[in-house]
């Protein structure tokens, strides 16, 4: 049947092996060798001061032991204030960030937006993703001073990069025919988005939003370390005072809240399918 001469009889009785990923054997072996020699060389450059490690183990032990007796009470009002501030920052930045992300995501989906809009929106996403939260927070603290405003703005900015990118990718991979059918009715662009696109990406949007809420809460705990308010500031103070039991209490609270959000997002995502 086939056009190319292939003698089946020659193949009988010989084992078959999957063709290797890299066809040329010499290239394959050079790449494998290069990888491992680089890996070994890289490990050898890491210097370890064993005396310092031995000394530090004691501190580490105290830190870990503090978790057996976390102290929620002696700094309870600081912890409470920090938590409230973090939660306000999280909710406010998530809402603002998501509201800005949706139009940017539409602009960053090639099958919905024209090329110039696409390029602008993709650039916004690229900038937001390139600048790590901590760097943005340091900049904004320099501009707006210490406190939750800088944290709120940082998290809103970071939300845009995250949510727009993932939502735009979902829009790009939507079922084209469903959207085409709406277009064929003579719908306007806005109606087309509302009827043809939105129902298809809604579960993903809800899932991503809750996931981002979760990330923003965790990030708010980090941003305090650079002075951007929230529970992170309280945590930082506790570390500075070597109050590991208070720090442990804060970390336990963060873990509990993140786990609760994780559970909640699982439940909601299962329901919106």
């Amino acid at each position: 049947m086939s056009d190319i001469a292939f003698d089946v009889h020659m193949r009988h009785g010989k084992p078959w092996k999957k063709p290797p990923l890299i066809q040329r054997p010499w290239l394959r072996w050079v790449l494998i060798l290069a990888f491992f020699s680089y890996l070994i060389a890289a490990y050898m450059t890491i210097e370890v001061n064993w005396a310092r490690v031995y000394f530090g183990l004691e501190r580490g032990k105290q830190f870990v032991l503090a978790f057996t007796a976390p102290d929620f009470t002696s700094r309870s009002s600081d912890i409470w204030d920090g938590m409230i501030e973090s939660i306000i920052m999280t909710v406010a930045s998530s809402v603002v960030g998501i509201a800005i992300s949706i139009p940017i995501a539409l602009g960053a989906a090639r099958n919905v937006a024209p090329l110039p809009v696409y390029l602008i929106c993709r650039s916004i996403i690229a900038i937001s993703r390139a600048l790590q939260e901590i760097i943005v927070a340091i900049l904004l603290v320099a501009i707006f001073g210490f406190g939750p405003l800088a944290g709120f703005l940082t998290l809103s900015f970071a939300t845009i990069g995250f949510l727009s990118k993932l939502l735009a990718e979902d829009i790009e991979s939507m079922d084209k025919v469903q959207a085409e059918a709406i277009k064929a009715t003579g719908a306007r662009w806005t109606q087309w988005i509302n009827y043809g696109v939105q129902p298809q990406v809604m579960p993903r949007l809800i899932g991503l939003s809750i996931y981002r809420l979760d990330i923003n809460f965790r990030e708010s705990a980090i941003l305090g370390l650079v002075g951007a308010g929230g529970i992170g500031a309280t945590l930082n103070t506790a570390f500075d005072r070597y109050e590991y039991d208070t720090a442990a209490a804060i970390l336990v609270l963060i873990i509990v809240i993140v786990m609760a959000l994780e559970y909640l997002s699982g439940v909601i995502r299962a329901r919106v399918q």
Partner: protein
Amino acid sequence: MLRLEKLVKTYKTGDQALKAVTLEIPEGQVLALIGPSGAGKSTLIRCINRLVEPSSGNVFLAGKELTGLSAGALRKERRRMGMIFQEYALVERLTVMENVLSGRLGYVGFWRSFLRKFPQTDVDEAFRLLDRVGLAHMADKRADELSGGQRQRVGICRALIQNPALLLVDEPTASLDPKTSRQIMRLVCELCKERGLAAIINIHDVALAQMFVQRVIGLRLGAVEFDGPPEGLTPEALTTIYGEEDWEATIEKVDEDETEAAQ
């Protein structure tokens, strides 16, 4: 009613999907478009409502030229062309009613459609159409809960609520079983007759086309190879459209089965 003049579509890849197709369809005529895969059938009907932009040539709908229209004017003309799709193309996560009412999007403003506050006449018409195809009780079900045949009926309602003058039907039966296929074809043709609609139906099943339509166009490599009544589809005609094959079994007259179940 619909006139295509030297319609050409060349894709960016260089594939010439349509080679100067000229065609005229009078008011109320139901026409089947047959031809092998890749012959340009889908491209042809998509060039009419400009879901695919034709490269050159003209399309006249009731005397109005479509290929040069601005986006806004094209939207208005699209309302006059109902489209029915191969895989139903219902918006899966919307209800049956929303899917049917989406056929009115060209007539209502954004906020009305966004808030799902369609005019009462539209809602009444939607229920009347759903009842006509036997699905009125399913109005609040989500589209993805329906079977294939039911979905295609909803697709038909969505096209008809546009109050079109022309139906563009793209492989309506490709993913349906033989019995449902016949029911859907019969329904489409009956509705066209009731409302005096013209229709272009892309279809792979030659025997099914012969059962229901008044005129058959055979397309091969983007050019019209056959244009005539269904009886004219001789083995020779089919060979020019599809290539050499034993055609006797295909064009054997199929008994019109009268087991038309309501469901």
